Structures are given as C-alpha cells and as structure tokens.
C-alpha cells in the first residue's frame, strides 16, 4: 500500500482535521463524533437544510460540497463505509434551522438504512426530513430496475441544484422536488484503469491487468459490464457516450451539462482529450452544452479512471446550476 498516511485507523480523523484547519472559512466540525462537517457560517435562518453523507475517500464528495449554495452538513464514514446513524442524526441537527432538512445522498444500502434510522432519531427533535437518492450509474442496473442503481458523480449536479434552490428560499417540498428532478436528470458511467487501496484493508480493492480496463466499474470497485484491453480514448469515450445516450437520449435543441470526471489518478490532460469526443457527440445530436465540468469532482482516492455524467436541463435546472455557490473545491458565479 503506497499511500501517505499515519495509522490507517486515524486516516479519516486526520483528514478531517486537515480539511477544517486548511479551510476554516468554509468548514467546521460539528458535534462530538468528530465526523460531521458543517458550514463554517450557518446558512440563513429559515433556510431548508441539505445534508448528505457517505464513506470517505471520495473528495470533494461528500464533505467538500458543504458550502454556500450547496450543502449545510455532511456525515462522514470511514473510507468507503457508511457513517453511523448517530452521525447522520448529528448532521441533520446541524443542518436544521427550522425549515426541515433534505437528505440528499447516493443509493447505497448501508447509507439508506442509516439515514432512515437517523430520521427516526431526529423525530424526537421535531425535525422534518425528506429524502432524495441519487441512482445515476447506468452500469449498475438496467433501466427496468433504475431505482437499484448506485449513486455516483451525478450527486454533484444534485447538490448544486438543490443547494441553489434552498439558498433561494424555497420550502422543503420545493427543494425536495427540484432535487428529485435533478437526480432524475442525471446519468453516469465510469471506466476504471487501476484500483485504489482502502487504508484499513491495506490492499487494492480489486486487481486488473496492466493492459486492461473495466467499463462500468463502480467507484468502490463494484464489477462493471466488461473487462478488456485498454483502447483509444476516442473509443472509450464513444462507448461511454453510447451507453449514456441509450439510457437518456438527447434530441436537437436539448440543453445539457456534462461532467467529465477523474476518479483520482487520471490527470486533467486525459479528461480534456476525452472532452473532445463528448462535445462532438452531444453537438452532433443537436444538443447545446451548458457549463461543462471537467476535473476531479467525485473520486476514489488514487484510482485511475474516469466517469461521465450527463445532466439534462430545463430552464429551472439550468438557472439553479448557474447560480452562485462556493466551497473549497468549487465556485460558481
């Protein structure tokens, strides 16, 4: 395991200590679990709160997206492990300012059970919660079972759009509805070139030959749709776009955003090479690309690979996507 760390057990605590120490203007630790990050300056009183949560190892996801026009609080688990229900309840309490809290997170079994249990716990505090799950990974289940899909980088769009709606002053139902609309508008697919290592496991999450890639692999190494020889960037991007567009066709006149995301080790140079194909494919279908995102928005530590997320926009989503937001990893407006 070639990683820079101290004790594997201390990985997450030290990471959070560093994150909050480096960016005290954005983040603070909330409560006494040491695993809940909240905005340094709470959002406006009466604003709907938005919380997320999930395993560590995906920065900027999840905690990084706490910030103005984005999330209010986040519960952080160990690497690739769900936070506990207690921590999620703490995050919900941190996010609440009386207008209720949207739980907005990825569709993973453990997270769902824990956020449900957290909801039970905060009932005693009279906090109303709603839930929107991201289930955007088209490789993880066929369209007929779309609700079983994993949530991946699509959550970046959902955080942004829901965060802007809450900032605008919409009520809990309004924020929840537009978050659901954003979640429904996103489709993602990934391809992995090399694994990462969970510190406490000490060995790579999977093995893959020096000349192989896996199409559709999940961000924790969940198996994909095929494994085969590495091929040209244009071919990889072409297949990824085929799979996204098969699930969510775009038509002439559509307005879409697209996230070309590195899973970690893959450098921006390669993302830009891929972007050429992405752009050509969308434009040849007659779509207009709005605010493309190219970079590391949702990662798996040092995993090499990329994901594409297509987000189909309407006027409402586009306006919210373009609204200002600010955190240590992303700024709009």
């Amino acid at each position, binding site marked *: 395991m070639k990683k820079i760390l101290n004790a594997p057990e201390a990985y997450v605590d030290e990471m959070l200590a560093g994150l909050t120490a480096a960016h005290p203007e954005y983040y603070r630790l909330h409560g006494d679990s040491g695993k809940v990050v909240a905005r340094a300056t709470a959002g406006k009183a009466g604003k709907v709160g938005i919380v997320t949560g999930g395993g560590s190892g995906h920065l900027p996801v999840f905690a990084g997206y706490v910030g103005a026009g984005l999330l209010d609080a986040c519960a952080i688990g160990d690497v690739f492990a769900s936070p*506990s229900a207690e921590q*999620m309840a703490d995050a919900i309490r941190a996010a609440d300012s009386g207008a209720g809290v949207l739980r907005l997170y990825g569709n993973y*079994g453990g997270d769902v059970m824990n956020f*449900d249990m957290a909801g039970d716990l905060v009932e005693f505090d009279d906090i109303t919660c709603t839930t929107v799950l991201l289930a955007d990974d088209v490789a993880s289940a066929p369209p007929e079972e779309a609700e079983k899909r994993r949530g991946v980088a699509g959550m970046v769009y959902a955080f942004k759009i829901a965060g802007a709606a809450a900032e605008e002053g919409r009520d809990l139902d309004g924020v929840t509805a537009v978050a659901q609309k954003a979640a429904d508008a996103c489709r993602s697919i990934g391809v992995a070139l090399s694994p990462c290592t969970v510190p406490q496991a000490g060995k790579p999450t999977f093995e893959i030959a020096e000349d192989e890639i896996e199409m559709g692999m999940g961000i924790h190494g969940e*198996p994909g749709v095929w494994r085969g020889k590495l091929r040209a960037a244009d071919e990889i991007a072409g297949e990824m776009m085929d799979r996204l567009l098969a699930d969510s066709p775009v038509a002439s006149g559509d307005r879409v955003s697209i996230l070309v995301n590195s899973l970690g080790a893959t450098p921006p140079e390669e993302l830009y090479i891929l972007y050429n194909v992405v752009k050509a494919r969308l434009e040849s279908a007659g779509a207009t690309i709005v605010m493309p995102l190219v970079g590391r928005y949702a990662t798996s530590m040092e995993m090499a690979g990329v994901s594409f997320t297509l987000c189909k926009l309407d006027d409402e989503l586009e306006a919210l996507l373009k609204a200002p937001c600010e955190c240590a990893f992303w700024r709009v407006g």
Partner: protein
Amino acid sequence: MTIDRAALITGLERLGAAMERDFDLLNTADGALGDGDLGVTMTRGMRAISEQAEALPDDLGQALLACAQAFTKSSGSSYGTLLATGIMTIAKEVKGRSAIEAGEVSALVAAARDKMQARGKAELGGKTVLDSLDAVARATEGVSDPADVADAAAAAANDALETFRGERATIGRARIFGDKSVGLDDPGMLAMSRIVAALANREA
C-alpha cells in the same frame, strides 16, 4: 437454565473472541461479494461492547440497548446497522426483565428478523442475514430446553448458509455480482452462523 446478565456477558465474551478469530475470514468473504469490511465491522462493534460489558445493568432490556448503541456508534456498515436494529427490537421486548427463558428465543429472533426486514427493505429468501435468522426462529420454535435450543439454533444457521450458498445474491453490494455470487457464501449469513455458534456455545 435462564439467560441473565451473567449468561449474556459470558456469551458476549465468547462472541468477541470468535469475531477476533474470524476477522480475516469475514473480511475475505465480504471481499469476494462486497467491500471486504465485515470482519472490521464485527470486531469493532464487539470491542465497543466489551468495553462496557462490566457496566451492563441487570435489566436485559437496558443491557441489550447499550449493546445496540455500541454497534450504531462504532460503524455505519449495513450489517452493524441491521444487527443494531435487531438487538434494539429484542431489547424493547425484554425491557425490565433480568432473565429470559430459552423457550422465548424463537419469538425474539423472529421479532428481530421482522424489524430488520423493514429497515433493509429486503425480501426473505434473498440470501441475506434475514434468511439465517428466519431459519433460527423456525428451528427453535416450540423448543424450550436450553441445550436443545442451542443445538437447533446453531444447526439452523449453518444449514441456511449451506442451502443458500448455491443461490444468487439479490440484495446489498453482493447483488451486483449476479451469477458470480452463486457458490459463494453470503458474508452476512456466514457471520450469523459464527455468531449463533458462539452465543450458543456450539463452536465446531
């Protein structure tokens, strides 16, 4: 023989030791069909419990509630949360009592199973820990002799593991492995057969 605080603590000691011993086994089983952390979840949860074992009250309801909370705080893994849900259910049932009879085990396990099923939104027969608990609840139904209950529970958890090995996983991280899951143990079922064996003092 009734189950009281002393019996609970002895059982938890055996269970703690078993989980330390099975750390790699459970991680490996979960590695093949999941994220490889089940051994971590179980040892961490059991360590949190044993830290407070001495302070456990005589009221079995309060004692089990403390055990459930130890799991809820120590991790957020599915199995930990499901176990906590199940233990909490039993805790509520036995609240205020300092002893329970072996003959009550079946009903208590069935109650835990049902609450866990509601939490995890899964079906019985899906090759999960629910099927282990279901088998234990059925096998101990109507049995009241402590040794018979122990025998029946341990055998049932093992049998369920064997029976479901040949099935396809349908729930949790294992689902995505599809046909590759056939022939492999569900990690949660494997863990439950070890848990039951340790609590029942029927380890091979």
